[in-house]
């Protein structure tokens, strides 16, 4: 997978997060995913079809997810991980990927994206798109985030 695609996803997430009040988000690492286990209980998945085909998964721990949702809703306290924070996070992911899609369009890569779905569970293992997955780590005041990018060229 070409690095210019990865950059479009990183830029999309950072820009949209900033717009929604998560200002401290910064990229901390990038590597290939080498195991199926994930420590994160909240995963938001989005599919891509077009010049690029694959899935992008934004994942984090539940405590981080609640803090992010609270920030997005203007500081409203979130004590339970119910429909409200779930739909806030889906929207974050939707906007970030929409932004990334228009970044990709600028370099001539046309894609369409599916609506997001949030997966919540414990002790999860996952296989994304059946291809090599690039993991980009982010850190913010709210906690750590991971962006899993699994794209077939």
């Amino acid at each position, binding site marked *: 997978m070409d690095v210019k695609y990865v950059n479009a996803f990183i830029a999309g997430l950072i820009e949209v997060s900033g717009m929604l009040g998560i200002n401290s988000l910064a990229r901390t690492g990038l590597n290939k995913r080498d195991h199926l286990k994930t420590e994160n209980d909240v995963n938001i998945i989005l599919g891509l079809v077009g010049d690029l085909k694959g899935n992008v998964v934004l994942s984090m721990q539940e405590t981080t997810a609640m803090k992010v949702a609270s920030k997005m809703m203007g500081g409203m306290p979130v004590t339970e991980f119910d429909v409200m924070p779930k739909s806030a996070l889906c929207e974050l992911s939707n906007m970030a990927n929409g932004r990334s899609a228009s970044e990709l369009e600028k370099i001539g890569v046309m894609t369409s994206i599916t609506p997001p779905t949030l997966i919540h*569970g414990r002790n999860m293992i996952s*296989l994304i*798109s059946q291809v090599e997955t690039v993991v980009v780590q982010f850190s913010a005041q709210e906690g750590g985030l991971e962006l899993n990018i699994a794209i077939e060229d």
Partner: protein
Amino acid sequence: MDLAQTIAPFVRASNHVFKQLLDLNINKGQAEPEGDNFVSQGFTVMVGLTGGWQGWFFLDMSQDTAIKLAGLMTGEAYDNVDNEEVLLAGAEIANIISGNALTDINNLNSGVSIRLTPPSVFAGEGMSMFNVKLNAYSVLLQTDAGNIKINVVMKEAK
């Protein structure tokens, strides 16, 4: 778009694929109500759909059933869902089912031309999937390998 146009083609395709690929009969199919979330039995394959209609197809089963299906597919014995081959087998089954169903949908509804994303597989404890457009009813297919639940999220693209 109604249930007959969205979830029914997936039920037909599942029936066909389980029979042809795995020699597995579906004894009974029934609707099962879902709440705000799609509640997983422990192993879920998700295939994204884009085009004139966009959404997701969920193929869900217990980890035990996933291990059995992988065994039926490859002829080998697996003891843990942690095995990558079990995940790949689940992904492949969902891929074939959604391929079949989409051929049906695209033929019946001109101009819709839905396309598939590669499947992703999630397994874990107490999993639930949240999507704003989730179908209020899943279809539960009873087979000799265990219960297999399917749900389809579908909305018209803006």
